[in-house]
């Protein structure tokens, strides 16, 4: 299918504690599956960019004045561990791809969000 009819989606991988309790071999095997999955999506022209986010960083809030705290260090089920940008036909296709995420076996969840393309500048 042509690139013109593809729509952009963002996969957000939530759960930075997925590897807790796993052996090094299990972790390594899962990471290899992940790399193979991402490489295949890239070769198929469906993944545009994808990167992990570290657990370091900062959180900025402003409801009661500007506050900056370190975080989100704590591994949690909600914390975003990484993302992939997809260009695929529709939400169903994006969902099919998300179902292949190797982290799902270990409690990670995957969020599939359409990107509002009219506003903003996407990854090239």
């Amino acid at each position, binding site marked *: 299918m042509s690139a013109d009819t593809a729509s952009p989606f963002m996969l957000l991988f939530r759960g*930075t504690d997925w590897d807790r309790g796993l052996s090094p071999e299990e972790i*390594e095997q899962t990471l290899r599956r992940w790399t193979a999955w991402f490489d295949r999506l890239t070769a198929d022209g469906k993944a545009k*960019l994808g*990167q992990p986010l570290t657990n370091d960083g900062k959180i900025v809030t402003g409801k009661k004045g500007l506050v900056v705290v370190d975080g*989100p260090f704590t591994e949690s089920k909600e914390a975003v561990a990484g993302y992939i940008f997809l260009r695929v036909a529709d939400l169903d296709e994006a969902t099919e791809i998300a179902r292949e995420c190797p982290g799902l076996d270990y409690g990670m969840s*995957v969020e*599939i969000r359409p*990107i509002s393309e009219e506003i903003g500048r996407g990854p090239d």
Partner: protein
Amino acid sequence: MSTPVTSSEYMLLFKGTHWDHDLSPEEVQDVMTRWTSWLDRLTREGKVKSAQPLANQGKIIAWKKGVPVDGPFAESKEAIGGYFLLQVSEEEAVEIAKECPALKYGLVVEVRPVVDRCASIDRLDLAAAAN
């Protein structure tokens, strides 16, 4: 605890899709106008690799009782409304995050280093080195 990562790329994640619920249309428009100028300025300064809003729709696949299950995406305090991917230092990323026009209405900005190797690989390496 491993030493903090330094990166030259930071992602700002805009969290909380309820911040505009109690605002008047004029207030929301004002925030959007200021948001656009903010992003335009950062783009002119060459700091933005990409920046987009995420639609409040989509799906979540989560593990429930041993099976991955599809569910609808739901707005919440943890829900991410959009992101900026910036090519700046951490300090600068935080300063930029502080300028977000929706902060005073309760939106939260998470500033996260973007890397090429995931944290789990680093933990693996650390464990291997310890043996």
